[in-house]
């Protein structure tokens, strides 16, 4: 840690981790609702719908906290100055956490906007917007005052502003269901395949530069090309969600072609990570951080690139749209790209924030491999269930519940893998919260 205000990041990370754990507990309830019969009395009180809104909102909340913490860590080093106002940063953390907790309790009592992934009620949306404005102001002022612009800074700030702007499209009430979904995807798709990719690109470039000692010049050149391709394919690629909503037919062409190219920038990210690692000018001090960085690039490619491509063409999407195939992709992509990116940041920054140079990574390694293997298995079992559903329900037309009865077994296997995932996650979280220096031997 070079700057005192980087310590802010630590508390963002600490806040994010328990939310991740809670998210996974709710995931297990969702999985159980598929595999077992939850009695009517329980369903009437705590339904799948409530649990799902908690599962997904927790996901978004902890990841945004992670990104913000990441920004508070990176910006001082990049601008070579302290954060404009640490007080505001802590205030904003508390405001977001309180909003999140109120929202979760609200869901339980049926206070919801009732739109998937955007369930947070509109009054709370306003608090979120204020929080985001404070955050952007704080980061922006730090950069402006320092006036030492770099591509990494620019990408990070651009990504965060874009992210905040898109959120606004999710707030209004739309009378027309078609238009509603049209703009719903401006939040969801343009986040994960646009703004978040910018933030990810910037954070990963920063970490790689610090880890490998490769020239800033080289790292930033790659970064420009990557984010250029992300934007080029990702923006028009939104069309892959407009095939069946009642939008004009040309979206089948725009969406199909642009989204089919979306794996390219991800592939580029894998290649440049590998290259930088190979051409490193430094010693590997904490191998686990390197493992995470590479794991993140590779799993990003699998979950988003390969799994995304698999169902993005209209001819296939017609049968897989809104099935467990989507869930399989959603899990692999969110975990591979953004959960691992956040964990990479945590493992990179938290030891430094605690003043530990070389940390003991034995538990961390176990956690990494358990989570990754378990999530890959979950992706596959969700996937098998999804293919069964697409075939039995949609190709053969044998009805929704008929298909579900054939999928039940696979959802059961998913829960078993999910329990292993939870074990890996608990190991990881414990490890991060109680990092200790490695025993001196080498």
């Amino acid at each position, binding site marked *: 840690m070079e700057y005192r205000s980087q310590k802010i990041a630590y508390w963002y990370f600490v806040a994010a981790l328990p939310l991740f754990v809670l998210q996974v507990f709710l995931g297990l309830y969702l999985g159980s609702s598929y595999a077992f019969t939850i009695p009517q009395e329980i369903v009437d009180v705590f339904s799948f719908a409530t649990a799902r809104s908690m599962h997904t909102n927790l996901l978004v909340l902890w990841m945004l906290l992670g990104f913000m913490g990441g920004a508070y860590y990176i910006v001082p080093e990049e601008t070579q100055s302290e954060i404009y106002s640490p007080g505001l940063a802590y205030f904003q953390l508390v405001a977001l956490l309180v909003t999140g907790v109120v929202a979760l309790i609200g869901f339980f009592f049926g206070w919801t906007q*009732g739109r998937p992934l955007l369930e947070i009620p509109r009054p709370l949306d306003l608090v979120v917007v204020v929080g985001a404005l404070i955050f952007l102001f704080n980061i922006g002022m730090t950069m402006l005052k320092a006036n030492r612009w770099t591509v990494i800074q620019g990408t990070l700030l651009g990504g965060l502003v874009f992210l905040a702007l898109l959120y606004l499209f999710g707030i209004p009430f739309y009378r027309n269901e078609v238009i509603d979904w049209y703009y719903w995807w401006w939040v969801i798709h343009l986040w994960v395949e646009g703004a978040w990719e910018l933030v990810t690109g910037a954070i990963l470039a920063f970490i790689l530069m610090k880890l490998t000692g490769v020239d800033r010049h080289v790292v930033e050149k790659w970064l420009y090309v990557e984010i250029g391709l992300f934007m080029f394919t990702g923006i028009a690629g939104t069309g892959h969600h407009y095939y069946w909503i009642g939008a004009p037919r040309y979206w089948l062409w725009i969406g199909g072609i642009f989204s089919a190219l979306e794996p390219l920038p991800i592939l580029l990210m894998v290649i440049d990570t590998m290259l930088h690692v190979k051409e490193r000018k430094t010693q590997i001090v904490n191998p686990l951080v390197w493992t995470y960085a590479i794991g993140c690039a590779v799993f990003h490619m699998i979950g988003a690139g390969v799994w995304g491509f698999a169902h993005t063409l209209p001819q296939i999407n017609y049968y897989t749209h809104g099935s467990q195939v989507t869930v399989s992709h959603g899990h692999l992509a969110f975990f591979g790209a953004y959960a691992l990116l956040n964990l990479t940041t945590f493992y990179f920054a938290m030891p430094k924030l605690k003043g530990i140079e070389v940390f003991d990574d034995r538990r961390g390694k176990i956690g990494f491999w358990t989570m990754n293997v378990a999530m890959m298995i979950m992706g596959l079992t969700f996937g098998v269930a999804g293919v069964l559903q697409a075939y039995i329900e949609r190709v053969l037309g044998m009805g929704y519940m008929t298909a579900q009865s054939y999928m039940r077994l696979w959802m059961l296997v998913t829960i078993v893998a999910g329990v292993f995932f939870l074990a890996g996650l608990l190991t990881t979280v414990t490890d991060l919260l109680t990092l200790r220096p490695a025993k001196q031997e080498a």
Partner: protein
Amino acid sequence: MTKKTAFWIFLLGTLSSAVLFLAATWDTHRQVETLSNVDKLSEQVVAGKRTFEKYNCNDCHTILGFGGYYAPDLTKVVQRIGADGIRYRVKSPELAFANSWRKMPNLNVSDAEIEDLIAFFTWVGEINNNDWPPQDSKKRLSRGEQAMVATVGVSPGAAVFQTKGCMNCHALNGTGGTFGPALDTIGRELSAAEIRTYVRDPKSVDPKSMMPAQTGLSDRELEEVAKFLSNRK
């Protein structure tokens, strides 16, 4: 490649895609008027949409394929089970799905709200959305039926039964829906002719029947499925 070239790749990539996207957005707004029948988008439809959101139905059910995947897609639910079917299921899910291994909560939706929901689903069902979902597309399923006869070797009647929505509500050999009775031994009770009459218009046989009239079947298909069922003894 210099950093400057890289910068231009970024700028042109972003701008070209954004321009195309925004132009298409503008045109989409124009065309959605017709594609979604905006003239029929009444206040009651909007009220139905609000109700749909109020009870968070969408985190279990997909609509237009988006949402939770835990329960049947509701895009064409009116075509599938009819307005009465919706009333009964939303009002008393604990009865409607008593035999099912997956439950829908009783959300205490008021009668007026249910009527709004029906108006909303009716409007959604008429959106011109490139014939999705396939399971409710008559055109696709006729093809599925033919494929089944040709490849799996089932009888034409069995293929009709499996692909024309009967299995949404009825089970055979332990698989299928639970809303209607299992039909494994229906041939002991009804003849082919009786089944034909019943399926075409259940209320003409039993005014209290909960089965909606199956109007999507051609005469030939009805013939085949009745023959198939009457042989189940």
